[in-house]
């Protein structure tokens, strides 16, 4: 019998948006890391759990609803911890929730204490602390099947007596015992079993002053009295670790594993990315056909567009978690009305270029992010991630970061966003913050189109030199990140990285279900956070690049050579717009970098997403947006450009300067949104933007001036 038949999950319609507000009972899962707690949670809730928004904390708590016999209960997966003396932000949340100290969230009605049957003594330390809280507690003795096959014998009834709580042997992997667990939880909920005083804390004060020593002594006594384990033989984990944790072999093994993961990310992601690209082009084309050429009766047009805009706002607010109040409501209505009053052609451009293009530009990175999280989850589940942190520890300490920062930094080479989310594994807040702040300097895949353009611009005749441009850009990004981390550690975030203490759990076969759950969870967060911000920003940038419009003149007059009337019109319109004017306005600032006002327009419009610079340059140099895909035409056109004095714009100096700028500049608002989310304030997102922009400016300035001095 499967657990879903017993603990029937309720249908989606019965859900409340917040676990904290649901009138169902709250059941909290608590346990050490590596006890299979999340596997148990995923098995109990199916794949329909969600990240709950608890007010006042930045830590994600996953929760899901489970139907018990006497009603539904909301299960919350509290972050794993070794002790209620919490160190990391996640652990502090667990301790706070259990103490009932989280604002708006009462203490859980029942605590399910997840203990690993194969490491019971170690797990009993947290158990003693949790039992001291005197909350109704049910002990789930997980990985019982593994303990059985290792010939570990545990006297359940004696253990239950020692812990003064019901103890249910379960296996989250096979589903064994989960029906009993659900029943006992239900009984504790409905009967409110009396809580008996424990005697294990007899030594918490006055003995030696070390409460941990007393708890470990108690754990040893309970374990010795109730657990019989055979002398272990054939130490598989030991044998694997003898290879994987060796100083040089270990690092080599780790880099090979990551190389394979990255190869898979880039090769597997290309297919869905092409599909996303085509899908959004198709949606754009369909929208183009749907919008009538001739204006409809004004009332009908206004009504339809207003209605559709309001639907979009409702969806956007729901996704971003914005509540409807007077201010947000007025803003939505005003903006929807403004959109409805647009001329048909402007509306067409807004919808296709602004909205559909903007959203498509973000969704295209979703496959990479999902695949990355899939592999990270598998590696974590298998127990390997702890070894990765272990072998990288010494190398990372040189720049003042912990070994655990290495996996986020590698992930950032696909996209900074999953890297920032993966930085949660770093327990110490300062170390985590430094890592988050430097991650966007690493070369992400959105920079590749820009590098491709610049490499072709600089060395169109020499593929090997063009390849060196890529190598140089990657090296510059990595060096800048490590250097910035070192600087931050010496200045505003002082302190050396917290030295390593990490459990190296037994290797095991990773769970596919956990990986899929992680992908759904992280993917949703990405679309919600990045998607809504990028939608807003791409609309704002559309406005800046479209208005004010050219006065009605005959655009055909500008036609010259192979530049068509339409392309020339787009070029002039952009030059006349706010963006074009801003490009001219900032010309004095960017002139020392070798940028002319047209490059400035590219820099400004790619503020939200750096890859946009390629299509902007295509428009601003008058070859039309479509030509941006045709690298040869674009590069040829760019190479032909001259300054007022007749010298070419794109000299080697300008090219290198532009490259240095795009390696180092922030130029990605979705990343900023995620930085804000993970650090809990806009302060750090703004800091990230400012220091990276300053660094990009200085680097481009030095590059251009020294290249010019060298006569390049």
């Amino acid at each position, binding site marked *: 019998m499967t657990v879903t038949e017993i603990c029937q999950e309720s249908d989606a319609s019965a859900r409340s948006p917040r676990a904290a507000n649901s009138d169902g009972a709250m059941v909290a899962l608590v346990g050490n890391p590596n006890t299979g707690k999340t596997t148990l949670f995923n098995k109990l809730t199916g794949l329909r759990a969600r990240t709950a928004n608890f007010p006042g904390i930045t830590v994600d708590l996953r929760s899901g609803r489970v139907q018990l016999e006497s009603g539904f209960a909301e299960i919350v997966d509290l972050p794993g911890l070794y002790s209620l003396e919490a160190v990391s932000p996640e652990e502090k949340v667990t301790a706070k929730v259990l103490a009932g100290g989280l604002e708006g969230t009462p203490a859980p009605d029942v605590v399910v204490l997840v203990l690993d049957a*194969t490491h019971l003594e170690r797990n009993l330390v947290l158990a003693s602390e949790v039992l001291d809280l005197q909350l109704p507690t049910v002990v789930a003795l997980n990985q019982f099947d*593994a*303990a059985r096959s*290792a010939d570990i014998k545990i006297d359940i009834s004696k253990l239950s007596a020692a812990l003064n709580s019901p103890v249910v042997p379960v296996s989250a992997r096979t589903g064994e015992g989960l029906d009993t667990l659900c029943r006992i939880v239900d009984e504790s909920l409905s009967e409110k079993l009396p809580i008996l005083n424990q005697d294990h804390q007899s030594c918490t004060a006055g003995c030696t002053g070390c409460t941990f020593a007393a708890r470990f002594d108690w754990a040893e006594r309970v374990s010795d009295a109730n657990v019989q384990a055979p002398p272990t033989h054939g130490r598989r*984990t030991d044998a694997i*670790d003898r290879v994987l944790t060796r100083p040089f072999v270990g690092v080599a093994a780790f880099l090979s594993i990551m190389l394979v993961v990255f190869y898979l990310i880039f090769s597997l992601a290309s297919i869905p990315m092409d599909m996303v690209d085509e899908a959004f082009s198709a949606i754009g084309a369909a929208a183009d056909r749907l919008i009538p050429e001739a204006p409809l009766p004004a009332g009908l047009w206004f009504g339809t567009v207003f209605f559709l805009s309001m639907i979009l706002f409702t969806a956007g607010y729901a996704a971003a978690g914005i509540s409807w109040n007077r201010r947000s409501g007025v803003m939505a209505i005003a903006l929807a009305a403004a959109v409805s009053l647009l001329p048909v052609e402007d509306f067409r451009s807004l919808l296709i270029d602004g909205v559909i293009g903007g959203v498509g530009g973000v969704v295209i990175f979703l496959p990479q992010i999902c695949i990355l999280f899939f592999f990270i989850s598998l590696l974590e589940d298998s127990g390997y991630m702890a070894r990765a942190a272990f072998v990288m520890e010494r190398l990372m300490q040189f720049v003042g970061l912990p070994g655990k920062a290495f996996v986020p930094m590698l992930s950032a080479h696909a996209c900074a966003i999953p890297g920032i989310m993966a930085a949660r594994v770093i327990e110490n807040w300062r170390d985590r913050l430094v890592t988050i702040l430097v991650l966007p300097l690493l070369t992400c895949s959105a920079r590749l189109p820009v590098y491709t353009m610049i490499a072709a611009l600089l060395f169109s005749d020499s593929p090997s030199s063009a390849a060196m441009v890529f190598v140089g850009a990657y090296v510059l990004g990595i060096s800048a990140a490590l250097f910035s981390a070192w600087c931050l550690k010496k200045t505003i975030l002082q302190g050396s990285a917290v030295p*390593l203490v990490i*459990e190296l*759990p037994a290797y095991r076969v990773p769970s596919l279900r956990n990986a899929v759950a992680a992908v759904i969870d992280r993917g949703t967060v990405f679309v919600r956070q990045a998607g809504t911000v990028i939608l807003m920003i791409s609309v704002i940038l559309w406005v800046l690049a479209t208005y004010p419009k050219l006065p009605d003149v005959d655009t055909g007059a500008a036609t010259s050579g192979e530049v068509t009337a339409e392309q020339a019109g787009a070029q002039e319109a952009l030059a006349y717009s706010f963006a074009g004017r801003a490009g001219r306005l900032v010309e004095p600032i960017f002139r020392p970098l070798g940028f002319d006002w047209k490059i400035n327009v590219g820099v400004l419009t790619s503020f939200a997403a750096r890859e946009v610079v390629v299509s902007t340059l295509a428009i601003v140099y008058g070859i039309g947006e479509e030509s941006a895909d045709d690298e040869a035409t674009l590069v040829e056109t760019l190479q032909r450009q001259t300054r007022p004095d007749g010298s070419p714009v794109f000299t080697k100096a300008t090219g290198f300067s532009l490259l240095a700028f795009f390696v180092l500049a922030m130029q990605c608002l979705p990343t900023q949104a995620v930085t804000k989310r993970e650090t809990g304030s806009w302060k750090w997102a703004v800091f990230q933007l400012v220091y990276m922009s300053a660094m990009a400016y200085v680097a481009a300035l030095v590059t251009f001036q020294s290249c010019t001095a060298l006569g390049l």
Partner: protein
Amino acid sequence: MSHITLSHAGPGTFRCVEITGQGEPVVRLKRMGICGGRHLTIVQSGDPMILRVVGARIGLSRELAASVIVDSDRVNADDVMSAANAQCDGDDCD
């Protein structure tokens, strides 16, 4: 019996006497079982080193190992067996 720091100890099993220092690093050590009265087995020396503590393998940097005070004499081998094997360490558990 004299005391040494764990960073100076070779392979073998030692009884932990106390942890020097205070604050977060000490809590991080203690909650993992690197705490007065426990037996610590050095499985692999180096920086970071690998210990076996209360049935689990712990990676520990030398910097922190320097704050762990242990008895300089190794614990009797028979005691080690019973201490180290009190729990399955995961090899045949899966």
